[in-house]
């Protein structure tokens, strides 16, 4: 059995993140990291693999990424977290890919590995935050999609997930092979110990180009992008800020401040809708 986890290398969200003049994310800060939400994806895959091994099934967890040199750090981290092998799609033509281009490259990499019984992703990349790639990947790989899972279980060739949406909670199931995206509620990613870090150094990272994958470079990267950032500016700092310590009257003063600026309605709500 093979479980493939698609991950992304992103600027650390704790760091100062910025866009360049081309409207693309500045990735040369050196403080890139495995997308935090993808740690949940790796953990989910590794736990499912452990359970399958306990049941006597031979399982391999492969972590896959596409990105520049630095992106290797993301799959290395995946190996430390328990994946068995890694694939890094490294090709200049991948730069500037939009979500569809990214999904094309990842789908080709998954296919290149051969049969995948389960593809796992995080719910979103903490840079672009579009959440589009999991569904796009499922479509391109022609797999049933079970997204935004807060729990995942495998049994008898069927995957079952629970997910919380804005208006409902659902339990979904599908036959394998399938694609699952997990939220940060799905698990608590393990913290690799020294032994795991040393073991990860011996695990293989396969580097592939678009030519290896048979992907036409014109369909990905800047060449294939369907959208373009035409303007990017840091949000102007907030002005006229007030910071007070409560002296017993702060609630009253805040009420006056809100009404002065018309931030709350001056007459009570009538319950009017539409």
């Amino acid at each position, binding site marked *: 059995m093979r479980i493939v986890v698609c991950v992304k290398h992103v600027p650390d969200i704790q760091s100062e*993140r910025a866009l360049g003049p081309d409207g693309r994310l500045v990735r040369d800060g050196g403080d890139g990291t495995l997308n935090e939400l993808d740690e949940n994806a790796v953990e989910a895959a590794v736990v499912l693999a452990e359970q399958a091994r306990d049941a006597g099934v031979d399982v391999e967890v492969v972590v896959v990424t596409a990105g520049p040199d630095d992106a290797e750090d993301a799959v290395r981290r995946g190996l430390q977290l328990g994946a068995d092998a890694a694939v890094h799609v490294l090709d200049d033509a991948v730069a500037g890919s939009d979500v569809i281009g990214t999904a094309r490259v990842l789908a080709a990499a998954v296919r290149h590995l051969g049969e995948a019984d389960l593809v796992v992703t995080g719910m979103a990349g*903490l840079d672009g935050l579009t959440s589009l790639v999991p569904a796009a990947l499922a479509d391109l790989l022609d797999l049933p*999609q079970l997204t935004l899972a807060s729990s995942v279980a495998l049994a008898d060739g069927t995957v079952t997930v629970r997910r*919380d949406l804005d208006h409902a909670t*659902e339990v979904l199931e599908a036959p394998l092979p399938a694609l699952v995206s997990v939220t940060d509620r799905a698990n608590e990613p393990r913290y690799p110990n020294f032994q795991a870090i040393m073991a990860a150094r011996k695990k293989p990272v396969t580097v592939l180009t678009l030519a290896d994958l048979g992907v036409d470079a014109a369909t990905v990267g800047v060449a294939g992008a369907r*959208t373009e950032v035409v303007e990017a500016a840091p*949000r102007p700092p907030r002005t006229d800020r007030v910071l007070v310590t409560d002296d017993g009257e702060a609630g009253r003063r805040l009420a*006056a401040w809100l009404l002065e600026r018309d931030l709350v309605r001056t007459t009570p709500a009538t319950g009017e809708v539409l």
Partner: protein
Amino acid sequence: MATVLVLLDHADTGALRGSVLELATAARGLAGPDGAVHGVWVGDEPLDPALPVLGRHGVSVVHAVTTGDADPLLTPVLAEAVVDVVRATGATVLLALSTFENKEAAARVAIATGAGVVTDAASVERDAAGRVVAAKTVLAGTWTTRCAVLTDAAVVLLKAGAVVSSHVEHDAPHAPEVRPRTVAVTARATRVRVVERTPQAPSDRPDLSSADVVVVGGRGTGGDFGPLEALADEVGAAVGATRVATDEGWIGHEAQIGQTGVTVSPRLYLGLGVSGAVHHRGGMQASGTIVAVNEDPEAPIFEIADYGVVGDLFQVVPQLTEELRRLRRG
């Protein structure tokens, strides 16, 4: 003549989701005087009550799509229904609310139609060259961008509350023409089975994602949301929470604001006992005015607050609610 499609998200009762009319308003701007705005209604729910409202907001045709035995709540099914209408109408722009379900459908629509997609847009317009251009905030609300769609077809997902909805100006708008369609959904879209589906209990409060005012509780509430609910009732606000508060079970998961929960950009955000961790800021930093009450003067939320009170929320919030009640009714 440009046709702009609007995805008509609705509840099981057939009631339109609040922000759908904002989409219709934005769509009129994109369609221009010679174009038309069409709605896409997917599902068997009653459409009649929505029709006059849609007419007043400039929707001239509603494509009422049924999908047979296929569950339209599965996003691959929804995507195939939408693609069918896109092809039938020749529409080049699709607008939908920026929800997780619609994002999934949008990814599939984009692959099927070659469209470029922009999610979480705060506004949308055409530039001088006629291209669809959407504005959005990125990187946890710290940057604003304008994103142009380079392909002929565009899918833009607008955040709730992005546009102020308005009626059409002429006096007697017609009820939209309803064009029923039945879409034969492919087997590949229905391989997922819904084992169980529990709808969220309806609330009298406004929808969190589109509310004008949002009252948010964090760790500092210690689990007591009573004073926050009283304030929310007084000002007609939605109640939200941080990840800590939902993980502790103090309030439902659907109330979580942040990068992995609901993104809000209300006119007024009130963070009470909220520290302002980066994950939370990513879901609220684009709010108009930010007010924070927290005992810890070092809480990061004070760095982005327009009005910060260092103090005990159990003192400050009831006093605020009481004073608002007095000033507004006195």
